[in-house]
């Protein structure tokens, strides 16, 4: 079993999707989804327990697939994919629980969630480019339907925009993949084997541009980010959680898994530009978050800002920077997940997401208010909570790196201040104060809802205090990447 653990983690949800779709009743479908995501999380925990930090690619599975083009069924995890896989398993389970009361087409809904899980888990373990791409695109369809069917008023626009944007990026990634494969120095679709092949610099530059388009749309990096706020605002809560928590990370994961090791020279050459975009994303996202009137849109723009820190760490290419990037990926998934869940829970009660309509949560609903404040402070990077870990390390790595101009690091550091500005304005206007009309009379969180949030709160605290709980997996790989690929 252990040797097929990854296959199980990826494909158990597929069976779950079929089962959910064919379940005799909505309740059965829901229970199945819960059971399946529970099993996947258990498997993921098993994986984490059995994982040996610093021992490279593990649980590798290989089989022939399409020999004509050399595509293989090739899975494996290392210290960078492991946390993301675990996070994906956790957030999927929480998404199922958070969607407990879905009344419209529940069977389809849970089937789509499970299908989404297949793609998300698959992306983080695929080591063959074709397989990677398959999982990458597989994510689009269920997410499209989740937004387009269970979303807000402008869901049609938002969902198709999401689909087309990401498709736009990914087709360029496909071109990049084919180019690597066709190049004399390449000739394989094995992602790990392509590392350090020494592609000519000129070729790397072009290939990097293709991959950059693919990944940057997903991240999203300014100015390719405009699909994100629309998608988030319209998406149902669970979809927002998974979108922000996992889907965005696929982009940055791609940079770490693909461009850094395979196109090191281009990564170096493009680093100043990437860092500049990262810094602009940070400040720009923060600025726009500050200007938002819709709570969900604010969180969405804050994601643009936070993902900028990931890009900054990746551009730095230092051990600290890459570790920081992965740490932000993880903690942003946890914290933003929390924020979206809370916004959703508040929305269910008040039927508004407008900041001006909601205030005094801490008076009316102390648990919800307190948790929202907690998540806000985690998001603005308060030390002791996980948000700080990655952002600090990213900045540290970027400053240390010779590739990133110091000015961009300073700009990014200012982003930390701006994050405080928009998050505190949320706390000030929504959590604090006298309860507004919409808030008056609403009930506090139920036990189920608290149960959804508690694991995330716990992770935020544990990672924030004991950084190594996350970094012991990440740091060895990051150091290796920094040394071998970027040479700094």
């Amino acid at each position, binding site marked *: 079993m252990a040797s097929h653990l990854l296959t199980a983690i990826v494909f158990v949800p597929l069976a779950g999707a079929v089962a959910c779709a064919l379940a005799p009743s909505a309740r059965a479908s829901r229970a199945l989804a819960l059971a399946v995501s529970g099993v996947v999380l258990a498997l993921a925990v098993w994986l984490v327990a059995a994982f040996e930090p610093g021992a490279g690619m593990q649980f590798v599975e290989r089989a022939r697939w*399409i*020999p*004509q*083009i*050399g595509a293989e069924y090739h899975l494996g995890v290392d210290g960078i994919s492991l946390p993301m896989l675990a996070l994906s398993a956790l957030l999927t389970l929480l998404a199922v629980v958070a969607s407990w009361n879905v009344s419209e087409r529940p069977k389809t809904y849970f089937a789509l969630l499970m299908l989404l899980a297949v793609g998300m888990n698959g992306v983080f373990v695929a080591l063959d480019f*074709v397989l990677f*791409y*398959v999982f*990458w*695109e*597989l994510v*689009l*369809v269920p997410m499209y*339907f989740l937004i*387009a*069917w269970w979303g807000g008023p402008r*869901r*049609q626009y938002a969902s*198709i925009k999401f*689909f*087309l944007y990401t*498709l*736009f990026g990914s*087709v*360029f990634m*496909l*071109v990049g993949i*084919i*180019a690597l*494969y*066709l190049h004399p120095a390449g*000739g394989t679709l094995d992602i790990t084997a392509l590392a350090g092949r020494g592609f000519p610099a000129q070729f790397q530059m072009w290939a990097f541009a293709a991959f950059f388009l693919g990944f940057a749309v997903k991240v999203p990096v300014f100015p390719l980010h405009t699909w994100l706020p629309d998608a988030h605002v319209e998406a149902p809560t669970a979809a927002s959680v998974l979108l922000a928590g996992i889907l965005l990370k696929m982009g940055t994961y791609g940079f770490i898994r693909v461009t850094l090791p395979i196109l090191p020279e281009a990564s170096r050459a493009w680093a100043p530009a990437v860092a500049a975009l990262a810094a602009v994303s940070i400040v720009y996202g923060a600025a726009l978050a500050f200007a938002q009137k819709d709570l969900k849109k604010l969180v969405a723009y804050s994601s643009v800002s936070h993902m900028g820190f990931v890009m900054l760490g990746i551009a730095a290419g230092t051990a600290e920077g890459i570790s920081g990037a992965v740490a932000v990926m993880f903690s942003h998934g946890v914290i933003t997940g929390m924020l979206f869940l809370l916004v959703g829970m508040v929305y269910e009660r008040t039927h508004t997401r407008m900041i001006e309509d909601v205030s005094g949560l801490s008076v009316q609903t102390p648990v919800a208010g307190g948790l929202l404040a907690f998540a806000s402070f985690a998001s603005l990077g308060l030390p002791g909570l996980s948000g700080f870990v990655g952002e600090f390390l990213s900045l540290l790595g970027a400053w240390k790196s010779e590739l990133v101009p110091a000015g961009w690091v300073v700009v990014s550091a200012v982003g930390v201040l701006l994050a405080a500005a928009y998050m505190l304005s949320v706390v000030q206007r929504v959590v604090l104060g006298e309860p507004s009309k919409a808030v008056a009379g609403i009930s506090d969180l139920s036990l189920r809802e608290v149960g959804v949030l508690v694991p995330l709160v716990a992770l935020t605290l544990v990672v924030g205090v004991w950084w190594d709980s996350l970094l012991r997996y990440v740091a060895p790989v990051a150091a290796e990447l920094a040394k071998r690929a970027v040479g700094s």
Partner: protein
Amino acid sequence: MTELAVLLPEALVIIGALAALFAERLPGGDRTAARLGSALAFVAALSVAAIGTASPIAGGALAYDAIARDARLAVAGLTALYLLWLSGADLERVREMAAFALFAALGGMLMASAQDLMALFIAIELGTMPAYVMMGYERGDARTLEGSLKYYLLSMTTSLVMLYGFSLLFGLTGTTRFDHAGALAPQGLLGAFAAVFALAGLFAKLSAAPFHFWTPDAYAGAPASAVAFVSTAPKIAGTAALLRLATGVSAGEVVPLFFGAAALASMLLGNLGAYPQRDIRRLMAYSGIAHSGYVLLALGAGSANGLAYAIIYAIPSLAVMLVAAEEGTAVDDWAGLVQRRPAVAWALVALLLSLVGVPPMVGFFGKLAVFGAALDAGRTALVVVAVLMSVVSAGYYFRLLRPAFFAEGVLEAAEGVQRRAWTSGAAIAIATALTLLLPLGLRALQTLSGLRL
């Protein structure tokens, strides 16, 4: 006689066609005729697979290599699928439709193996003439007749241009055989002209721009049930023929230049033209133009991957048109499809995604093959256009999904739901299964070998 054993599939198809045409008193009538044809076409497809590759026959006029094998398999298989659907369709004169489809299939299968100008010409005409009839199937409808006449006139014109090209090729090279690369490569400017004429005719068969004008009008006039067949199986055969002929006439700069220009024009005109369409037939016509552009992209790079792409794209295309034949040809006719026929609606998702080229659907592997071939030939700019246009295509394909899934305020018109024959569901299901499962069996497609290791 043993040599002629490779023609067993064609023989089966002829039997089916004749049976449908003449056996008016078959028990079960038209339906039985279509089912018999379907079964025979299916057996034909199986026998193509069983026979595999063989040496050329008829003095070298007909080749039975991998190209022929894959194309014939696909044509026969698609015809079987189409006839299966037809056998349960709520249409009149199904028997005649079945017969014409089988004749067209026969022409297509011969086209796929023809490597002689004469054989090719006859095969093309054998494939095209039944198509005229099918497209003019609704004899009482002025629009159908108009579309059909346009199809006929434009097709004739291009056929004659092609034939004129053939005659020049023959005159310049002294042979009609194109059984190896450059076998029919004429010299000089006149030779280049001849090649252009000859290829233009085949471009028109594929409805590649700028010879695509007949397509939207003819499709929009014809019944969707006819378009379903005419827009798919013959194109596979046309691709195979074009592949052979292009190899045969590979005269200097002509092929890459002409193919590149046509591919570019097709991708742009097809994808952009499809965007504003509200009639599914017309939309699929433009989408077909676009896909022909991708096919030409690969063929122009000298890769057989174009054939694989043509096959891969024909499957979902056929199924989508079958849905249109059942549910209506206006985009809005599909409103509320997910309530009426959820399985069909979800099948459409897979089919349309395959057309977009999203994995894990087979369409993705088709795009992979085409882009790979073109990149390998250094046609990066064309690939970038292709890639951009495939994103555009997602836009209009999703427009088809939108009413099917998200139509607001559609009543659950339970009483209006027709009982469909099991065959209609089965045909769509098989097509969907193929788009989903074909990736697992891709290694069977030998033509998909342009991506070399």
